[in-house]
């Protein structure tokens, strides 16, 4: 095998993976592939199937049909999981162990981990090394969980809501560390509710809704998918009146301003100006990732 084909092979992959929980379809023939060197953000509203997809890739669940693979092998195999690091949202580490001990324990699972001191340094935990986990703040606990995830020098890192509970400074520093890891060749799968986090970090975004992939691409590609724009203006026209126009998808009033959502911005702007001579403060916004996300997931739910 040449190095090129090795790089092209996905590190983690779901192919036509389906999973049901009773009558609920959590995943519906989902295809996903994470390649080396990318930061892949998996987005979706609650219940979209994000955690199920991740659980399949981590070997915590098995697909009803289709396949999940890590480095071309079953994620149920410990040997396959030696290449990954994991940070989960709902995982309390042993409260009685000190920070250094948590890292040493997790590192023992890996064949060639980083020295504990280096991990403490990378995750800015050196001053807290001897502190019991129970005595840490919420944000510090997240940092330790992150240290546990990276200590084994994984090729692929799964991070579930890594910056929840962190203050702004800690979040910025975590983002910097993630960028450094990606630059060093680590691939990252990120699930997050903070769309600005995905917007700031992700080289590729996939949006799930109802267990299906509704869109995938770069942040810019995703924003371009949404032709919908937002018009904001100060006008005497009522929201009900404007909402009834054919090209308008929705209209709401927020204090002085009317906000109109539409796929045909030019047409609506022309009509707004015709209908109200005194109209002021006109602005037209292109969709951000947040709006793109809302639109993409709303359409599937319909």
């Amino acid at each position, binding site marked *: 095998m040449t190095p090129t084909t090795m790089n092209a092979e996905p590190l983690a992959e779901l192919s036509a993976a389906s999973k049901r929980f009773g009558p609920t379809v959590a995943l519906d023939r989902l295809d996903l592939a994470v390649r080396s060197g990318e930061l892949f953000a998996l987005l979706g509203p609650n219940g979209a199937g994000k955690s199920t997809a991740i659980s399949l890739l981590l070997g915590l669940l098995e697909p009803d049909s289709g396949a999940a693979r890590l480095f071309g092998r079953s994620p149920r195999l410990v040997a396959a999981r030696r290449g*990954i690091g994991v940070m989960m949202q709902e995982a309390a580490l042993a409260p009685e162990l000190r920070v250094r001990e948590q890292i040493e324990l997790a590192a023992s699972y890996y064949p060639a981990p980083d020295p504990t001191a280096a991990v403490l340094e990378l995750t800015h935990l050196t001053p807290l090394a001897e502190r019991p986990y129970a005595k840490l703040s919420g944000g510090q606990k997240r940092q330790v969980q992150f240290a546990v995830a990276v200590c084994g020098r994984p090729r692929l890192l799964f991070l579930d809501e890594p910056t929840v509970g962190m203050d702004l400074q800690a979040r910025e520093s975590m983002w910097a560390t993630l960028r450094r890891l990606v630059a060093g060749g680590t691939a990252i799968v990120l699930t997050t509710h903070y769309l600005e986090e995905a917007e700031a970090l992700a080289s590729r975004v996939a949006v799930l809704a109802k267990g299906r992939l509704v869109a995938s691409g770069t942040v810019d590609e995703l924003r371009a998918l949404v032709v919908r724009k937002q018009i904001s203006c100060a006008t005497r026209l009522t929201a009900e009146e404007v909402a009834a126009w054919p090209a308008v998808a929705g209209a709401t009033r927020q204090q002085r301003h009317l906000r109109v959502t539409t796929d045909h911005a030019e047409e609506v702007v022309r009509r707004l100006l015709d209908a109200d001579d005194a109209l002021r403060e006109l602005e037209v916004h292109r969709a951000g990732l947040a709006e793109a996300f809302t639109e993409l997931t709303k359409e599937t739910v319909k």
Partner: protein
Amino acid sequence: MNVNPSEAARELPRVMPVVAPSPWRPYWIEAKYETLRALRMPGFALPFLILPAGLYLLFAVVLFGTIKDPKAALQIFTGFAVFGVMGPGVFGFGMFVALEREQGLLTLKRALPAPPAAYLLAKMVMALLFSVIVMVSLIAAGLFAGLTLNVWQWLQIGLIDVAGALPFCALGLFVGVRASGKSAPAYANLIFQPMIYLSGLFYPLPRAIQWIPFGSPAYYLEQLAANAAGLPTRVPALVSVTVLVAVTLGLTWLALRRLARAG
């Protein structure tokens, strides 16, 4: 193709780890930290390490100091030994597994490349080490109370009771994989307390309920230890061993099956 063999040999080691880590290392580290955790929990370590020998001394020396019958004195000792090794197993597994399951620690370990058995083996090592400490302190207390057994008998009782912690680990695990973190201590107590009082460990039960101990692993363990101490027993040693092994394997199997399905 022209490959110089010495060159190839020089290239090879670069892609291999310089020192292959021992496959036992994660087991050892996990067991070390599990034991350290238990020792750092005063609410767990103090009662389970100090109570057995403390209570034994209180009852056998202070309160019943006048017991002249050496057989009765030995009987009380074997009863306390069973009581002492039950706690770390039932509660160490019952409470911690339930709590760690609920708080996601177990899920994280299953997602990380931790060897699948390391988590439970570490808890087992912890419970066995606690049982060793309990037995050493109890034997010391027994010598202090004037019990007369030979070294071989002491050793036998010690080993039987330490190994006898295993069925209680299995019992605790069985509770731990079913109960929630909050209800686990209650369930563990619901098993632990009646088993102590209804297994005839410390006093003979009324004739009408003398059949109850036959349903309790604690009773079979006490019978084994009593046999080693040269006391008369109602159950042959082979039967006791069979029951204890069956309880351990059966409950462990049921618990692991549940753990694999429900996590």
